[in-house]
Structure formats: C-alpha cells, structure tokens
C-alpha cells in the first residue's frame, strides 16, 4: 500500500514526536484559538475525509457507503514545526478539547532535529530530573537543651555577606589605621541570578525589578538581582534602585558602553559587579541572544544593530589566562567605582573550580566566587552543552568551602551557589542544604521564571523555546504581542510571594536546628543522606 506521504529518512509520524496532540472532535468548537496561540505552529486546521458505512437492517438491501468530511486539528510532523508541549492550546481551549501528551517511548525526533546540519539549540535546562540536593536531609534537630525555636515568632538574622571580608586581625588593624577595607554588602542569601534584559522580556524585567524594590523598601528584605549580560536600562542606572542591582559584565561586554557613560550620573553604587566567566547550563560557551530577540530597544541598550544574533565569545578575548583575566577585570571594575563596589567572578561548575578559587584567595580584591552548577538554566544554548556539559553544584561548593577552611579563609571569600536550586520545587530545602555545605548564598533563575511568571519549561523538554523569542507566556520574548500577556505588576507580586514563602520555609528549616542568630554557613553536621558514597564525598553523615 502506498504510504500517506512520501517516506524520506526524516519523515516522521505523530507517534515519533516527543509530544502528541490529543484532540477531541466531540468537544471542539472549532473556534481556532489553539491554532492561533501555538507558538511554533505545530497544529493547523485540518480537513479530514471519512468514510461512513451504513449497513441496512434489511439484508436484501445493499450497504450504503458515504463519504463525509469534517474539520479539526492536524498536528504537523515536520521537525521544524514539532509540538514543544507548551500546552498553550489547552490553556486557551474553551472546552478542554485539546492537550499535548508526552510520548510513551523515546522519541525519534532527536535523530532528525539537526536538519541542515544545524544541531539543536534551545532554551531551558538540562533534561534530567532529580538530583542530589533533594535527597539531603536536615538531621540535627536540636533536642538536647533547647526548647525548639519558633519559626513564626522568634527573631532570625538570616542575611549573608557579599564582598571580601578581611580576617579579624587585618580588619582591626586597618580600622585603627584608617586603611582601606573592601566593601561588603549585607544581603538576603537568595539572589536572583543573571538573566539579561534581552533574554527576558521588558515586562518580566520590569516586574522583577519592581518586586525587588518592594521587597527591599516595604518588606525590609535586602534582596539583590543580577542583570545578566545585556546592560541595564538607562533610567534604572540613574535611579536609587540601582543599589539593589548586581551588574554583570561578560565576554561580549554588551551594554557596558551605556553603563560606563552613566557612572557620573549614578545616584547610588550598584550592589556589586559580577564578572561572568561561565554559565552552568552551557559551560565553556558564551552568552547567546538569537537574532529573533534583538529588536530596537535591545539593540539600543546593548549598542548593536537590530536583528543580528549576539553570541558572546566563550572567553574574555583580551586576556590570555584566568589569573590575568580575573585580576585585571576585578581591578578595572573596582577602579570604575572608586573601590566602593565588590567585584566577583562567576564560573560554571567544573572540576577545575578549585584552581580558580585558589587564585582568588591570593587576590585581595576578589569579593567572592559564584559557581553555577550543571542544572542552571539558559535562554539559548546548544542542546549538547545543556544536557552533557557541566559539574554538579553540591560537590563543587563543598570542595570549595573545605578548601577555604583549609586555608582559613571561609569567611573571607563568600561562595555563591547556583544551578538547579529548587528545580523540583524544593527551593528552601535546596538552598539551606547548599548553605550548610558551605555556600554563603544561592542564585536562582529558572525558579523565579516558573514561580513569578509561570514559565512552562521542565526537565522533560517541555517548551524550552526561550531562544527564539516565542515564549508563549511572554517571559523571554521581545515581541509585544507576546510579552503583553505578562503583567509586570503581577510578576512583582508573585516575586514577593516567592520570597516571603521562602523566608518562612528557611526559618522552618533552621529553627529546629537551633539556628537563628546567623546563617548556618558550613553547618555540615546538620546534613545527612541515605547514600554512603554521597555522604563520604560531601563529608556529611550517612543516615538510614
């Protein structure tokens, strides 16, 4: 029998795709909303021909064969138009007549997605669920002499320090001699990690900034947000809200012309400068803003033409080694703000993190080290980088902390952990575990997008089209038709919800451990896991 369509190597059936659209003829009103909303045009109006057999009850009469046509939804099988599972069709359907379902076996699309020799690029995160962070338990419940602390009523001081903290001997010496003491910020330990203006839509960015300002000024929580590499809107640079912002510089230096020119007009210093050397989601790869998203506004802020892809180089091109690079960049950035702003590098999780850390311990200006683990997210990267490159954050942070303990510098160089914190929804537990392993604070990105803006992405490769600017929720799109779907005020409100609930949960974790007067950085005796190998690796307790 002849096939329905010509069979070529990349001819796929609906069954071969990762997502299959289930559509119910009886419920469908043919309103067309699903086909209109689909960000990747995976579905279209279909006209189907159907044979109707009407066997007569009277055997003397002949069977009547009739042909009818009906209208419905057809799913495209061309790899370029495959369904991404975002389920916006379900969201808009008035009758719940349509829903995408994950295939029940390994899809065949992955073998054909590289049409034209172009490997798959996408946004999102590593498509692997689970992780060690969720398995860490807090086992040292204070039962000895301590009436358990009341997370709801007790006073807690759960701030952290960002900046180079001098050892006590030096600090006191410099204090009495009026010497230079590096700037140190007291901030909330949950930091919104670098997501650029460009990667995020204007309404998402505005919402996050509003939420951060509210948390600081109304709730008294010193929450900080990192810009990512993409500059910062000129009005924010010249506003008092800049003090809540960590400006990021990366290898493309996007937006820094605007920032440097704004320095004389700044009312406040930024919280800190983050020098991005690497990103957990795509280690060894530079930032990437694909041409779809480079509109007039983004181009103006970044100082580039519109409609061109903006790949940042993987390395800072003007330097030849990490030692030189870190030292010179840190020095330059300190000088730009008169040595009043902490400057720290961010690297991707790697087995060579300790080499960078050791280098920083010898650099008296380094204000910290942010390490971004393999479960970090990105707006755009090659699929292979996301899924297969990188280092888990837990052992990276633990090794780094223990190295600092060995040289007695655990209070001098704050470690910030990022990458997959709260990836399964357990934000406070993951953050507390990393803090007890030795992190001074944690950076989150995807969690904010999911909780504050309703991002649909997941580890089972749902949606993940942030790279092409078609975000169906308007979070990572630069198309006004899409980002108008997102109300900045509501994002701000959700961000405040997120932080307040995180704060309560963090207290619910530290209070039973008997901790309230300081953040339990390095309190590894509180941690246990039911796997002896992990316990040994992280130097925590093995419990069963």
């Amino acid at each position, binding site marked *: 029998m002849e096939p329905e369509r010509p069979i070529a190597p990349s001819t796929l059936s609906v069954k071969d795709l990762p997502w299959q659209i289930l559509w119910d003829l009886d419920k469908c009103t043919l309103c067309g909303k699903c086909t209109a909303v689909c960000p990747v045009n995976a579905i279209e109006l279909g006209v189907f021909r159907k044979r109707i057999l009407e066997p007569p009850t009277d055997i003397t009469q002949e069977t009547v064969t009739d042909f009818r046509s009906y209208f419905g939804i057809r799913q495209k099988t061309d790899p370029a138009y495959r369904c991404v599972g975002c389920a916006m069709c379900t969201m808009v359907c008035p009758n719940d007549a349509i829903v995408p379902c994950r295939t029940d076996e390994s899809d065949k699309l992955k073998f054909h997605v590289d049409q034209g020799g172009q490997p798959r690029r996408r946004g999102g995160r590593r498509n692997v669920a689970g992780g060690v962070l969720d398995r860490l338990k807090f086992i040292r419940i204070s039962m000895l002499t301590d009436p358990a602390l009341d997370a709801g009523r007790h006073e807690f001081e759960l701030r952290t320090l960002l900046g180079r903290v001098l050892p006590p001997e030096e600090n006191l010496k410099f204090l009495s001699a009026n010497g230079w003491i590096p700037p140190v910020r007291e901030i909330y330990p949950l930091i919104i990690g670098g997501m650029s203006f460009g990667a995020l839509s204007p309404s998402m960015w505005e919402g996050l900034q509003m939420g951060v300002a509210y948390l600081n000024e109304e709730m008294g929580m010193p929450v900080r947000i990192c810009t990512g590499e993409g500059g910062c809107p000129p009005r924010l640079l010249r506003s008092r809200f800049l003090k809540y912002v960590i400006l990021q510089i990366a290898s493309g230096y996007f937006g820094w012309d605007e920032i440097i020119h704004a320095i004389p007009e700044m009312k406040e210093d930024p919280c800190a400068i983050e020098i991005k050397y690497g990103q957990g989601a795509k280690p060894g790869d530079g930032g990437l803003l694909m041409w779809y998203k480079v509109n007039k506004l983004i181009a103006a802020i970044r100082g580039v033409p519109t409609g061109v892809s903006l790949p940042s180089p993987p390395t800072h091109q003007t330097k030849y080694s990490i030692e030189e690079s870190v030292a010179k960049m840190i020095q330059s950035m300190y000088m730009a703000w008169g040595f009043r702003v902490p400057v720290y590098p961010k690297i991707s999780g790697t087995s060579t993190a300790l080499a960078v850390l050791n280098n920083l311990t010898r650099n008296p200006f380094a204000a910290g080290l942010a390490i971004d683990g393999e479960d970090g997210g990105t707006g755009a990267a090659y699929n292979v980088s996301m899924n297969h490159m990188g280092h888990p954050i837990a052992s990276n942070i633990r090794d780094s902390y223990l190295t600092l303990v060995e040289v007695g510098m655990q209070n001098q160089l704050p470690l910030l952990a990022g990458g997959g914190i709260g990836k399964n929804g357990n934000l406070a537990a993951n953050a507390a575990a990393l803090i007890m392993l030795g992190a001074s604070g944690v950076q989150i990105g995807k969690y904010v997008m999911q909780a504050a803006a309703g991002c649909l992405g997941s580890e089972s490769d749902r949606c993940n089209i942030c790279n092409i600017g078609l975000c169906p929720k308007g979070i990572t799109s630069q198309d006004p038709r899409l980002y108008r779907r997102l109300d900045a005020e509501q994002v701000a409100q959700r961000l405040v919800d997120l932080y307040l609930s995180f704060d309560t949960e963090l207290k619910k974790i530290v209070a039973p451990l*008997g901790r*309230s007067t300081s953040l339990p950085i390095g309190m590894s005796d509180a941690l246990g896991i039911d796997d002896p190998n992990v316990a040994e690796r992280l130097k925590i307790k093995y419990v069963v």
Partner: protein
Amino acid sequence: MCRLFAITSQKPLSPMVALKALDVMREGHDCSGVGIFLRDLAGPFEEIKDAPILSGIFSDKGLKRLDTFMMDIGFMTKYKISVKLPKVPPPGVPKRDVYLIRAYEYPEEWEDLGQTELYEQLLKIRLQLRAMGEEKKDMIVFSFWPDVIMIKEIGDPMLVAEHLNLDRKELFARVIMAQGRQNTNYAITLYACHPFFIQGYATMTNGENTAFVPIRSFLESRGFDGYTGYQSDSEVFTHILHYAVSKLGLGLETYKHIITPLQDGDLLDHPNSHFLKNLKQTCRPLIIDGPNCVIGCLPDHSVFMVQDRKKLRPGVVGGKPGVYAFSSELCGLDAAIPNRDKSKDFQPMHLDTAFVGPGRQEVTLWNQKDPLPLPH
C-alpha cells in the same frame, strides 16, 4: 543539663563551697561528673605564683612517662599535692592511679624567654602531654599553667569530692569555678567536661551551641595549635575568648559583641556602629547560636557571665564587696553567700555582660548598647 557555679573572694575558699552550691542545684543536673577550676591560689601555692602547675589524671605508667618527659626538658618538681585514694572508688567513679597536681620549676634554659614565648611553650607541653596520653591512654591533662589547678572526674560531684578529699587547706583559692555534669552534648570523655582552659582563659557553659561545627572549623583554621580538642561544643567559648582578648587584643566588653552581635537595627544606633559592624562581619563565623550562659575567668582574675541573645539559660550574679558568685540558680547563690543584699542580685539578660574585677568590690554591668570604652 549543666549547672554552673563560680565564686571570686578576697578570702581564700575551699572548693567545697562551690561543690555545695552545685549540690543544692542538683535537680538541675544529672550528677554525672564534675569539673573544678581553681585560680589565685592560697596555701602552699601562694608562695610559688609563677610556677606552672600541671593538673591531670595519670596511670602509674603514665606518671613514669611524664616524669621522664618533663625531666628531659628540664622541669623540676617544686611542690605537689599527694592525693591518697581509698582503694575502692565510690559508685560511678572510675578507678584511677594518680590525680596529679604538681608545680614545676622552669628549666634553666627558659629563664631568658619572654612571657609570650613562655606561654607558647607551656601550651605546647600541655598539648604534647595530651597527645602522649591519648596515644597510650595513660594520661589526661587538664592544665599546665601558673596559679591554676583543674580537677575533673566522672561521677556524683559530692562523692568525687569526698573521694579526693577536696576539702583540704592546700586547695584553697580565691577564684573557683565548678560545673556539675559529665555527659555533655557529644561523646563522654573527661576532655568534654567544663570548665575549659587555654593560656589563662577559662570558661564553662550551660546550654547547647548549635553553631559549633562552623565555629570549630574557623578556630582550627587560625593556625594556632591551642585551638584543638573540641570534644564539647562548649570548648569554643573559651577559645573565642582567648582569640578575642589574646589574639585580637580586644577587651572583655567586646566578647559578647563577637559571640552574639547586635542585630542590624540596634547596630546602626550604636555609638560605635562602624567598629561593631566590622567586628560582626569579620568575626561572623564566631557567632554562637545558643541558648547559652557562659561563665568565664580572665588571666587578671576577673570573673564574668554572659547570656546569649536567646536568654533561655538560667544565670544570676550576687554577693557583697569582697565576695561575689555567679550561679546557674539562685539557690546555689544562697548556699554560698547567704548573708548578701539579695535586692542587688542580678540576672544578666540578652544584652548584658556581668563582670567582677580583680578587686572584687562590685558587679559591673555592660549593656551591649552602651558605648565601648576607649581603646586602652
């Protein structure tokens, strides 16, 4: 749970004063052990204030090893207290060969050493002896310091006192600290028994320090040999005190600012906010997380009490000019100094440091919100 008692008196007192005070507080502790710290000694030790005194428990073999070790360095015994033990110890008290309290004459070669170096050497020898003892399980060393005696044992404090005949003239002292409990928050070992001592600084603590592990990591990484041990989460209080005063050159009034700094709002209003903010940041890993009540003694014989911020441990100070006591409970204070003006008893709260100086004339109170004294 621990009960603590410390007394500082112009008139030398028997350690039994403190042990009796502990005994009236026995409902609050489990009588599982006792630790005693004596300083500003009277009797025979009064004449040899500069001679370092070794306190510890030794087996017969350990004692021989000690003698060889000390003689090799050049230490000569100057005076010793012989503790004659009944053949059978009371129930709950282990059988020991020798409780040693022995004052030494410094080796001749040490005569030219400056005080700092001398103190470093004394510490080094104590740590060496401790290591030797831990290796062969034949010595337990509590202190090796001039004008200081320490006695620790497992068992009911009163039975131990009777067993060791502590009510003897040679043991009279002007500063006495005592604690009644052996079973501390970690493993049962005499090295976990309060009070703890390092280079002239002693403290004992009631409570649980949940920030123990990060504090221990910080102290251990200071590169100072004395910051070791840590069989108890309370030992870090002694070492933090030593670090603050001896290493950082700060006064006792800053101790509380290090272990329980003011919260940010209060810090901003403090007249020394710039200094205190720096101190809070730079000493962040030394912030304790109690509840704890700490009673301590400085090399100048001052005795003090601080509560942590949570103020969930009992503690009271009272007395009269010439004699003051710090006690976990009022009944302990009543037992030791009954005829004092009780209206002047003071229970330090979450911001207070109560302190009786070497003159023993009054209780000085520092509130954490008070301006710090000018640098000395």
